């Protein structure tokens, strides 16, 4: 945990809303990104990220800084998203991200949209914990140990989750991979 996060959490524990505001602004991108990747729907993602932050706010007096704040955030957020995935089959919403790179031509933009669409749909086919492991590894850049901490499982379990998740994704995303890699 950085000193700034630790200091903010201490202030939040005292009910300091300005500190909570700073904490949310520092980490909102991470929370939103993970929730969106896991749930695939902007409205669901916003609600999940919001609930995770509120959970952190409520639990602040009991918080113990044993790891980086982001690790704690990942743990609370992924647990929250997993609960939602388990309770309800997520509805696939064909709402695409806004175009970021206006230098790209319409063809490149269309291809990127299709690629994003396929990847999102393939991720949604995965069981929740496999999906979480893949997202945290590939999109958040977490190590096996950090994923294990977030999912509260062993490193060996992360290894299995990633292997199974990738195997299923490879089946779903064959069209995104070169032909010579599909054999075997």
């Amino acid at each position, binding site marked *: 945990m950085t000193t700034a996060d630790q200091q903010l959490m201490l202030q939040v524990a005292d009910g300091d809303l300005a500190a909570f505001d700073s904490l949310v602004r520092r980490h909102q991108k991470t929370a939103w990104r993970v929730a969106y990747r896991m749930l695939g729907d902007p409205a669901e993602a916003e609600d999940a990220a919001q609930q995770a*932050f509120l959970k952190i706010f409520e639990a602040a007096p009991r918080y113990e800084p044993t790891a980086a704040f982001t690790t704690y955030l990942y743990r609370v957020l992924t647990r929250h998203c997993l609960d939602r995935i388990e309770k309800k089959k997520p509805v696939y919403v064909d709402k695409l991200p806004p175009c970021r790179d206006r230098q790209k031509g319409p063809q490149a933009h269309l291809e990127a949209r299709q690629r994003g669409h396929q990847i999102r749909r393939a991720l949604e086919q995965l069981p929740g914990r496999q999906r979480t492991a893949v997202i945290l590894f590939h999109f958040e850049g977490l190590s096996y140990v950090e994923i294990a901490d977030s999912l509260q499982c062993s490193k060996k379990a992360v290894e299995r989750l990633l292997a199974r998740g990738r195997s299923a994704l490879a089946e779903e995303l064959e069209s995104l991979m070169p032909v010579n890699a599909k054999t075997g």
Partner: protein
Amino acid sequence: MKCDEIQSHLSAYRDGEGSSERRWRIRVHLKDCPMCRCKIQRLEELCLALDDAPPPPEVPDGFASRVVAKARDRVDQGTSPEREDRPRLGVLWQVAAAAAVLIVGLGGGLFATPLWTATTASDEPDGCLFVEYTDASPPGSLADIYRDVDDPRVY
């Protein structure tokens, strides 16, 4: 290692995980096995496809403000954060635990002497095991006082 076993570890191998011995075995196997080489190539292609995934949308406008507003609502309603002024049961639990230790200790002393002595070195006084048993009790608790009473070194 056979192909099935190798393939179950390829994902971790690709990420640089696993013991050095396992990694060495996989490396040796891959040199001679075109099928497993294809598998790891396919895995690599998948990882490249994932790396190439478009980023998610930007955080919705006003997200942080909405979260903080909800937190403020909860504070106004007196529900958050969970305050330390909730009823403290710690002292009651300590007394209850000390009483339980005392009862178990007395019961053990009266009825279970053969069992205790069976697990205690013969040159130790009988009270010694009980002293160890209550060592963890909080200072000033009933168990703590009982331990002192029972300890021949104190009296």
